[in-house]
C-alpha cells in the first residue's frame, strides 16, 4: 500500500505515531522518547517536523494573498453587502412564495392583487428599515449608501482645457465638465475605482455622474480606462456617436476617429450597445470596430503601449498625493517616474508619496535624473534648464551637483521633500539594509512601500546581487499582489536576461509562465512551459505544468 519507502523502519514508526496523534490521545513516555531520539538522528524526519510545525495557523491568511488594511476593510464591506443582498433576495422569494397559498383562498385577479400588495408592502418595509434593527429571521436592510462620486485630474501633461479654461492641478470633474486635450493629455480619477487617460487631440464630456451611473462621452480622440473589477458603485459607461461601451471591471481603450469607433480590451471584458447590432461582449485581447462583425487580436504594439500606460496610472493617485509640478526649458521633455513615462513638460501630477526616481529626457537621450522623497499631501516644483545640455547619443546622467545648479526648485508646502543622490550615502547604507527594509515592508503587507524599497535598492546598487534578486521579488509582488502581470513579466524577463541561470532562474521562469497565463498569452505561455520543462526537469511545478501543457495543446 505504501508507495513511499522509508529509509529506516523507525521513520515509519514515528510517522504512524504522528498520524495516530490525530485521534486525540496523548503521547506515551515510550513514544515521546522514541520520537525525540529519532529526530536527533534522522534529518528527513526532523526537516518534516520543523517544516510542518511552521504551517500551524498563526492568525494570518496563510497561503492567501496578504491584504493591506484598506483592502481588507473593503473586502469585509463587500462581504456584508453581499450577505445583505442575499438576505433581501431570500426575503423577496419568501414574499413570492406566499402566492400558492393565497391562491387556495382567493381566485384569479384577487390573488394576484393580494400578492402584489404584499410585495409592495415588503418593498416599502425593506426600503424604510434602518440598519441594525431587528428584522426577524430574515434580515432585510438597505444597501450601503453610495456617496456621490467625485472626480479630479491627477495628471496634466502639456496644455489641457477643462470647461473652456486652462486646467489646473487636481481640477474638479463633475457632471457636465468638458475636457479638450489638444497637444496635451490628462488623467482623471472619477472615484469609485475608475481612472481615465484622455490622450492627445481628444475631447470628452461627463454626461452623467451620480450614484447610479457615470457616463463619459467621447466626442473625439482616444481614452484609455482602468476600472477596478472589485469596485462597487455606479455603473460606468463610455458613450460615442456609434454606440455605448459598458464597463464592469477592465482595462480598455476607446478610439473615436469620426469614421469609426474602435474598442480594445486589455483585461476583463466590456459590453457594447449600438443601434446597428445587438449588444455584444468584447473580451480580453480583442478589439472591435463598433457596428462591424469582425474582431481582431490586439497587436504586440498595442499591448506594450497599454502596459506602459498602466505603469503610469499606477503611480498616480487622488488621495494623500504629492503634487509634482515639472517644467523644463525648453518645454516638451519626456518625464519618467520610476521608469514609467508619465508625460512631457510642463506637467502636473498627483503622485503616490514615497521614493521616486524622476528622469527627464529630450530626443531619447537621458538628460536629467533626480531622486525624490515625496511626502503625503505635499507639493513639489522643479524647473530644469535643459537648453544646450543634450549631446546626441550622450546617455550619461548628469551629476547631482550639475542637476541642482540647473534646477530651480521651490517647495511650496511642508513637509520638505529631500533630494538625494545614490552615491551620497552609499557608504552608510548597504544593499542588505535596503533588502531587509523591503522584506520588512513585505512581511507587514505594505506592498507599495516594499516596491519602493526594492526600487531604491536597484537604483542605489544596480550591480549588486541583491538588486538582481530583487527583480524576481518585484515580479512576484506585481503578479500576486498588484494584479499587474505585464509589469511582472518585465521584471521576470529582466532577471532572466541579466542573470540567466541564477539560483532564482526557476522562480523567474515560473513567474514568467504565470504572468503570461494571466495575460491570456497562450502561445507564449505554451512555449515558456516547454522551455521550463526542458530546463528544470525535476522542479515541483512540472506535473501541473504538464497538465496545463495538455490543456494548451
Amino acid at each position, binding site marked *: 500500500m505504501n508507495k*513511499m519507502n522509508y529509509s529506516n523502519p523507525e521513520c515509519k514508526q514515528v*510517522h*504512524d505515531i504522528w*498520524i495516530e496523534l*490525530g*485521534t*486525540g490521545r*496523548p*503521547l506515551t513516555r515510550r513514544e515521546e522518547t522514541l520520537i525525540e531520539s529519532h*529526530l536527533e538522528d534522522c534529518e*528527513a524526519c526532523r*526537516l*518534516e*517536523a*520543523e*517544516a*510542518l*510545525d*511552521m*504551517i*500551524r*495557523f498563526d492568525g*494570518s*491568511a*496563510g*497561503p*492567501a494573498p496578504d491584504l493591506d488594511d484598506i483592502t481588507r476593510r473593503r473586502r*469585509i464591506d463587500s*462581504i*456584508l453587502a*453581499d*450577505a445583505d443582498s442575499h*438576505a433581501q433576495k431570500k426575503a423577496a422569494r419568501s414574499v413570492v412564495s406566499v402566492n400558492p397559498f393565497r391562491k387556495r383562498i382567493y381566485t384569479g385577479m384577487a390573488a394576484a392583487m393580494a400578492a402584489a400588495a404584499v410585495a409592495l408592502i415588503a418593498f416599502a418595509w425593506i426600503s424604510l428599515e434602518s*440598519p*441594525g*434593527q431587528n*428584522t*426577524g429571521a430574515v*434580515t432585510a436592510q438597505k444597501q450601503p449608501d453610495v456617496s456621490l462620486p467625485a472626480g479630479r485630474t491627477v495628471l496634466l501633461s502639456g496644455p489641457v482645457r477643462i470647461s473652456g479654461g486652462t486646467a489646473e492641478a487636481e481640477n474638479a470633474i463633475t457632471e457636465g465638465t468638458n475636457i479638450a486635450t489638444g497637444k496635451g493629455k490628462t488623467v482623471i480619477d472619477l472615484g469609485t475605482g475608475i481612472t481615465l487617460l484622455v490622450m492627445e487631440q481628444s475631447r470628452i464630456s461627463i454626461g452623467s455622474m451620480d450614484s447610479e451611473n457615470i457616463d463619459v462621452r467621447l466626442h473625439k480622440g482616444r481614452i484609455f480606462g482602468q476600472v477596478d473589477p472589485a469596485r462597487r458603485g455606479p455603473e460606468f459607461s463610455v458613450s460615442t456617436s456609434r454606440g455605448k461601451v459598458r464597463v464592469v471591471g477592465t482595462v480598455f481603450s476607446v478610439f473615436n476617429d469620426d469614421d469609426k469607433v474602435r474598442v480594445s480590451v486589455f483585461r476583463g471584458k466590456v459590453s457594447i450597445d449600438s443601434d446597428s447590432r445587438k449588444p455584444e461582449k468584447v473580451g480580453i485581447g480583442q478589439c472591435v470596430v463598433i457596428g462591424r462583425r469582425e474582431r481582431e487580436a490586439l497587436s504586440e504594439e498595442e499591448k506594450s503601449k497599454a502596459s506602459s500606460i498602466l505603469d503610469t496610472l499606477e503611480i498616480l493617485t487622488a488621495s494623500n498625493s504629492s503634487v509634482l509640478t515639472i517644467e523644463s526649458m525648453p518645454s516638451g521633455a519626456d518625464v519618467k517616474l520610476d521608469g514609467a513615462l508619465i508625460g512631457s513638460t510642463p506637467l502636473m501630477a498627483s503622485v503616490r508619496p514615497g521614493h521616486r526616481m524622476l528622469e527627464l529626457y529630450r530626443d531619447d537621450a537621458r538628460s536629467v535624473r533626480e531622486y525624490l522623497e515625496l511626502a503625503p499631501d505635499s507639493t513639489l516644483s522643479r524647473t530644469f534648464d535643459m537648453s544646450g545640455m543634450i549631446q546626441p547619443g550622450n546617455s550619461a546622467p548628469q551629476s547631482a551637483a550639475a542637476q541642482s545648479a540647473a534646477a530651480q526648485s521651490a517647495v511650496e508646502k511642508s513637509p520638505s521633500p529631500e533630494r538625494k543622490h545614490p552615491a551620497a550615502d552609499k557608504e552608510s547604507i548597504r544593499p*542588505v539594509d535596503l*533588502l*531587509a527594509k523591503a*522584506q520588512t515592508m513585505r*512581511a507587514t503587507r505594505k506592498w507599495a512601500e516594499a516596491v519602493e524599497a526594492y526600487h531604491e535598492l536597484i537604483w542605489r546598487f544596480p550591480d549588486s*546581487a*541583491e538588486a538582481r*534578486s*530583487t527583480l*524576481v*521579488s518585484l515580479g512576484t509582488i506585481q*503578479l500576486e499582489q498588484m494584479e499587474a502581470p505585464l509589469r511582472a513579466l518585465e521584471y521576470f524577463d529582466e532577471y532572466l536576461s541579466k542573470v540567466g541561470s541564477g*539560483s*532564482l532562474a526557476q*522562480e523567474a521562469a515560473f513567474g514568467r509562465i*504565470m504572468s503570461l497565463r494571466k495575460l491570456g498569452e497562450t502561445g507564449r505561455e505554451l512555449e515558456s512551459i516547454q522551455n521550463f520543462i526542458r530546463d528544470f526537469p525535476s522542479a*515541483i*511545478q512540472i506535473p*501541473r505544468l504538464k*497538465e*496545463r501543457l495538455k490543456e494548451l495543446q
Partner: protein
Amino acid sequence: MIALMQIKGESGSKIAGHESDYELTQAAAAGNRKARRQIVDRLFNRVRATATYIAAGHADAEDYAQMSFIEILQSAGSFRGDSSLESWAERITVRTVMRQVKKQRWRGQYVILDPVPEGRQESMAEGAVANRLVSKRIAEFLNVLKPEKRVAVTLQLVYGYSIAEIAEMTDTSVYTVRYQLSTGRKKLRRLISKDPYLKDMLEDE
C-alpha cells in the same frame, strides 16, 4: 516541534468563550450589523486561509471565501455554542469550498513562492518572513494532493483538528480520514525531503 504533536482540543483555547460566541451569532442572525461585522472580521483570515488551502490556490479561492462568509452569516442563527465559533465556521467553509471544488475539473493552480535571493537566505530566514516562506512552500506541496487528502491534512496540520473532528467536519469515517492522512502526509514528506529551498531555509534558521 512538540506543537506538531499536540492537537488543538487539548490546548483549551478553542473551548473558551462559547457563551459569548452564541450571543454574538444570535445578534448577527437578528440583523445586528455590528455583530455581523465582528464575526466577519474575526474569521476573516481563517476563512480565507482555509478556502485557499482547500481550493489549492485556485483563482476563485477568494470567491469561495466570500461564499463561505455568506453561508456563515446566513447560518448564524443555527450556531448552538457547543463548539467554538471558529470550528463551526471552519466546517461551513470546508463544505462550501469542497462543493465548489467538486464542481470543476481540477486544473492545478499555483502559488508563486517568495524567492530567496542568492546568498541571502540567512538574512531572510527570520521570524515571520521565514514562516511565511515555509508556509507558502508547504501550501504548494499541499496543492499536489487530491482535494480530500488536502482537506484532511490541512485540518490536522494547520488547524490541529483530531481525526474524529475531521471525520465529522467532512462527513466521512475516521478510517477514511486516517487513510487520507497517512497517504497524504507520506506524499508531503516526500516532497519536503526533496526540496532544496525548504532545506536551505530551515537549516539557515
